[in-house]
């Protein structure tokens, strides 16, 4: 059923259709609208058979989900940025224990400096914690991925993060085709736990594992993600059969056949990239793009295949491996390590800086000329950088960096006429 609604609302309504039994929430921008909507649905009785727990911190949130999931309940929570870091210990605990929790990440930059806007640093910080990480390109996909996430998580006994760009998707109104309860019920069976706290059949969950068995337990977690690589495309196809939409899967290619230059990215920026690709192609440029949906497990084989014809790859990412370059870029390079390719890392959109079609077209043209450095920061204000560096050289107590730069940029309020 089509609705024009906020992305967060679409996610909330879809999660509700998945019949969660325990939802716990701690507020953090930009995920608040999701859990508020779910809380209202529980409170009004619209979402029945579900307990909504207002926790005292994100660490509390994931801990409650861990307990609920271990006790056999379908559990859900959402967070972003600082909140994800605050629950980091629990993130590893959940995947280590194999609990099929689904968590939405409203992608937001991590401070300092404190920043509420979108980038991927939060999800990236937990990329190797053993959770499956799926990135939504649109709000439609964000909603749909949650249905797939519950099924994938419960099949594999592995928690899943559904990542959607904060503000850009969470706070955008879009035309969304929402699933019906019948569709979801027919596609997502009730949760059958692999392990459960049951007084009638007691087990001990969470025991210590020594050197003699730890590596094996970790390998099994690794194996789970390798199995996920097979299951994700299958589930996406099955999803299409019931819901009639192409959502999920490992990755999507856009005009990559025979493309000399291929752009790789995660999330909503792919929409703008495709617009740029269309304009350049109309201008005779050989260019295509790949939108990766399953970031963890990283689809090495599929990425390698999709980049088979490319002469050069531009990895555009909203994340920075400080002192090194890119994170997504490193994974892409691992996928194509056996072949000679130029890989250009472009760090863009950090802290919510807009990525414009104009900038992208300029960037891609430069790439085509191989006129890019191996690591580029898109639309960086070099003037402000130079001034700050000079300031730091000139005097020891140069003051907080953020304040200096903001003053430089002249953040003044508008004049009142």
């Amino acid at each position, binding site marked *: 059923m089509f609705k024009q609604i906020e992305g967060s609302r679409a996610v909330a309504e879809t999660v509700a259709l998945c019949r969660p039994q*325990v939802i716990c929430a701690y507020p953090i921008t930009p995920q608040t609208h999701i859990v508020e909507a779910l809380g209202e649905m529980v409170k009004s009785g619209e979402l029945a058979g579900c307990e909504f727990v207002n926790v005292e911190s994100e660490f509390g949130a994931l*801990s409650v989900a*861990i307990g609920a999931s271990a006790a056999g309940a379908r559990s859900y929570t959402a967070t972003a940025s600082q909140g994800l870091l605050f629950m980091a210990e629990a993130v590893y605990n959940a995947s280590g224990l194999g609990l099929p929790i689904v968590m939405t990440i409203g992608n937001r930059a991590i401070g300092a400096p404190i920043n509420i806007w979108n980038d991927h640093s939060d999800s990236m910080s937990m990329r190797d914690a053993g959770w499956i990480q799926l990135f939504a390109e649109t709000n439609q996909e964000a909603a749909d991925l949650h249905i797939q996430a519950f099924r994938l998580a419960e099949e594999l006994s592995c928690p899943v993060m559904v990542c959607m760009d904060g503000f850009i998707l969470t706070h955008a109104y879009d035309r969304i085709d929402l699933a019906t309860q019948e569709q979801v019920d027919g596609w997502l069976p009730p949760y059958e736990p692999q392990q459960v*706290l049951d007084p009638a059949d007691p087990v001990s969950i969470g025991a210590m594992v020594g050197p003699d068995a730890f590596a094996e337990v970790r390998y099994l977690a690794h194996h789970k993600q390798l199995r996920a690589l097979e299951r994700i495309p299958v589930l996406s196809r099955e999803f299409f059969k019931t819901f009639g939409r192409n959502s999920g899967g490992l990755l999507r290619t856009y005009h990559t056949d025979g493309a000399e230059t291929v752009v790789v990215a995660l999330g909503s920026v792919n929409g703008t990239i495709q617009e740029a690709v269309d304009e350049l192609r109309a201008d005779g440029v050989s260019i295509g793009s790949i939108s990766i949906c399953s970031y963890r497990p990283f689809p090495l084989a599929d990425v390698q295949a999709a980049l088979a014809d490319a002469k050069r790859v531009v990895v555009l990412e909203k994340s920075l491996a400080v002192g090194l370059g890119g994170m997504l870029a490193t994974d892409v390079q691992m996928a194509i390590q056996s072949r000679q390719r130029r890989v250009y890392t472009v760090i863009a959109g950090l802290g919510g800086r807009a990525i414009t079609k104009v900038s992208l077209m300029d960037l891609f043209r430069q790439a085509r000329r191989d006129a890019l450095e191996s690591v580029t920061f898109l639309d960086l204000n070099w003037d402000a950088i130079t001034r700050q560096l000079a300031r730091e050289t000139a005097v020891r107590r140069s003051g907080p960096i953020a304040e200096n730069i903001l003053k430089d940029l002249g953040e003044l309020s508008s004049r009142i006429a």
Partner: protein
Amino acid sequence: MPFEQIKFYQTGTFTVGNRLLDISDRAVQSDTKRSNALNSGHRACRGCGEALGARYAVDAAMRAANKNLIAVNATGCLEVFSTPYPETSWQVAWMHSLFGNASAVAAGVAAAMKAKGRKEVRVIAQGGDGGTADIGMGCLSGMFERNDDVLYICYDNEAYMNTGVQRSGTTPAAARTATTPSVGPEPGNTFGQGKSLPLIAMAHHIPYVATASVANLHDLEYKVEKATVIHGARYIHVHVPCPLGWGSEPHDTIKVARAAVESGLFPLFEAEFGDVTAHTPIRRPQPVEDYLKLQKRFAHLFRPVRDEIRLAAIQSIADRNIQRFGLLEEVTR
């Protein structure tokens, strides 16, 4: 627990399965049909107060819950010695998550039971003083504040014992620990620090708060059984000597615990919705010295010279408890 005057007693306390008691009053542990939830074979030190307390507490909870119990454990001594890889000594549905989140995980279990309509299942959370007072404080307060249907039992041995006896938020004044060594002008833990978990629990106005000690195991069982069938957030704080960390003799564990109670340093009381409703009077008052002398962690208060000032300060802590909880008064309830 209602105070009953018995004419004869053999060892100075209500011996387990004391045949002078009515069958219905006998300890859970004296029952051959007890659950043995914490089974033998665990790796606790000899004389471990926590192993003793946990065994009594969990079996009592199991009886009160008709075996419909799920236990969540924080990281700590109890978790480590009860699940020595690759074995477990638990015969109850049991989970260990992290150090600071036992209360939150238990809240999640309780929420799951509620969502599934499993009204008969009771949930307990267990943690040591470190996991409860310090790193677990945020989650604990949240659980209390929400009135989650969880009974939290804290086994307080007054330091981070499992990691080598480091000071915690419940370490008493002057106590020697690895991070409050008995050197310098102010040996041992600093005076004026520390928090009272029972009082913090009471400040949340939860349905039931109690303190208990392995000195009075019957009383511990009584309180756990009582708490298990109450709905909402409940908290029991159990004083458990640690021979290793306290430097006391393993065979003195109950004696040391009793000295803490009888000196007034560890008051036994119950509270409901923030108000004290009952207390156990001190039967034979002891000066704090009799308690402190049993433990090497307080040795520096006596040798090379007696530290009269600090001894007096500790006595005044005990005196304040006696006054505050009326420990030398007749029971009026």
